[in-house]
């Protein structure tokens, strides 16, 4: 009985962890799907959003109140980064996007260290610190809020891509850039929008994650590493795939940690990535 309760608790913990991973990964997969770019600075976008949320919280706009502002700010930031920088990378050889976004990672970490120092900073007495109990299981309120946020965000993004005019244009660009151009779609505009929306998603993620995590210059790195795995597992560009893969990764990590060893808990996650990209390179739900 006790073993069963532990199992159920781990399952719930794994699902909630997976939802946090999904929260960070959906923005990354959208950008990848539309323009074939893995943004290696994705974690640094998250870090920036976390600092922004903290700043707003210190001004009196607690994590959730400040969330819309963080989303808008990150959306604009994403568009600017695309216009000024990523656009030029796309014109170069394929490896330019890998190096370029990698350089952005180094630059943003350095700037964060210069401006905010390498100290850990957190929201004082954050809301949702309590515990929710049901059927002998317990979860923190914050992780439930984060999980709900992840589901809402994924649903919104999915609906946007599937059912709006702009979303359809994005899919067209993703399918075939040249054909999309011929059909009169402004590819640069769509790319910029996609990059902005990807950054906005991270803005939302950063806002929610400040409920449970402190921020520091490399705070985004562990989330981004998992997000790369999630996006690849789910199929680069597939939003629903990212959600499924994130849940899978969350459970692999939690169960691996318990039944294997806590210090090796990421090993099954990375192995899963290797197996999937080798056996089914298009990912679990990827179309290509």
């Amino acid at each position, binding site marked *: 009985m006790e073993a069963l309760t532990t199992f159920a608790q781990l399952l719930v913990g794994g699902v909630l962890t997976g939802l946090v991973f999904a929260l960070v990964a959906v923005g990354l997969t959208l950008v990848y799907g539309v323009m074939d770019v893995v943004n290696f600075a994705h974690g640094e976008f998250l870090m920036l959003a976390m600092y922004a949320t903290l700043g707003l919280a210190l001004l009196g706009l607690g994590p959730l109140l400040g969330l819309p502002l963080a989303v808008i700010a990150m959306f604009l930031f994403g568009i600017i980064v695309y216009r000024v920088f990523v656009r030029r990378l796309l014109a170069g050889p394929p490896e330019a996007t890998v190096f370029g976004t990698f350089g952005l990672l*180094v630059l943003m970490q*350095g*700037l964060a260290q210069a401006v905010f120092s390498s100290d850990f900073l957190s929201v004082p007495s954050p809301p949702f610190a309590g515990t929710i109990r049901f059927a002998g299981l317990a979860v923190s309120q914050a992780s439930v809020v984060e999980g709900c946020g992840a589901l809402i965000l994924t649903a919104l993004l999915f609906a946007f891509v599937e059912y709006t005019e702009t979303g359809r244009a994005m899919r067209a660009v993703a399918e075939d850039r040249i054909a999309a151009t011929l059909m009169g779609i402004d590819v640069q505009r769509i790319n910029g929008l996609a990059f902005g929306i990807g950054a906005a998603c991270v803005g939302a993620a950063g806002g929610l994650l400040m409920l449970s995590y402190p921020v520091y210059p490399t705070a985004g790195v562990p989330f981004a590493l998992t997000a790369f795995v999630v996006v690849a597992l789910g199929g680069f560009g597939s939003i629903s795939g990212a959600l499924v893969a994130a849940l899978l990764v969350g459970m692999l990590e939690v169960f691996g940690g318990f039944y294997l060893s806590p*210090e*090796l808990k990421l090993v099954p996650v990375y192995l899963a990535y*290797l197996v999937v990209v080798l056996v089914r*390179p298009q990912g679990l739900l990827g179309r290509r």
Partner: protein
Amino acid sequence: MIALGAIVAAGLVTALSVRDAVALDLVFTLLLYAVLGQSWNWISGYAGNISFGHAIFFGCGAYASALMVTHGLSPWLAIPAGAVAAAALAIVTGFPTLALRGHYFSIATIAVAAIVDALVRTQPWLGRATGFELPIASGWAALQFADKGPYIVLALVLFTAVQIATIALERSRLGYYLRALRANHAAAAAVGIDERSWKLLAFAWSAVIASCAGVLYAQYTLFVDPPSTIALGVSIDIALIGVVGGIGTLWGPAVGALVYVVLAKGVALELGGTGKGYDLVIYGAIICVIAALRPHGIVGAIVDGLRRRRGALELGAASATGGAA
């Protein structure tokens, strides 16, 4: 070749005449990183598979050295032992992953390196998180020296060997095939070039080079632990050096190492006292600018510039003859 000779001569003069430990340390670091950058360049530049996990091969050499010395064996044995371990690791991990393209391969290297890092931290015989400290000794048998001179000579030997090997690579069948695969793998496969085996060969050699650098590093620093040898941060430093100088070029890694040493040590000394991370800012900015404007790095830019000038000259000459005719 002339450039290489000049560098060797300059290095030897430095090793023999300069007594300034700090300057010698910079020269040693420069040569070591140039070798590491070149090692990375073999697989990521010439073969086009960008690795973000190259430090594990560096770690093979460093750990081989630590294990040999702490078990009372000669550190010279670490050179073949580390090389075999690195080549084996490259073949085992490269066999499945080298066929992956672009970011699929890059993320796979991060995954492999993270697994290696996690495993090392759990193994008591590999020193877990504590790592190894090598006891102090002196002389060629112990491969440790009180003076910097022999270290510079060793680093210079390694650097020269690696540069000559790279020149040989550029002119060899392997180098030709790698460039063909990088330019268009489908076309290369169509003419019968077996991607996997040629890339594995390049990957294994690349790992061996990094391992040799690892042995030298361990014998110089006398301290080996996961964060300073196999962690993601070290892999990223190695990749930075390769990218900044110019990938797929003979002198790119050396130029990258120069920029790295000047920035990491120079900027840290001038601006770093405040603890503000300005070196990272400058570093990141350089890479961003290079990626956006000069995707082939510093050496690539120089080569492009030279070609353009030569092209202009030839064009000028052609029009001149045309005018005469």
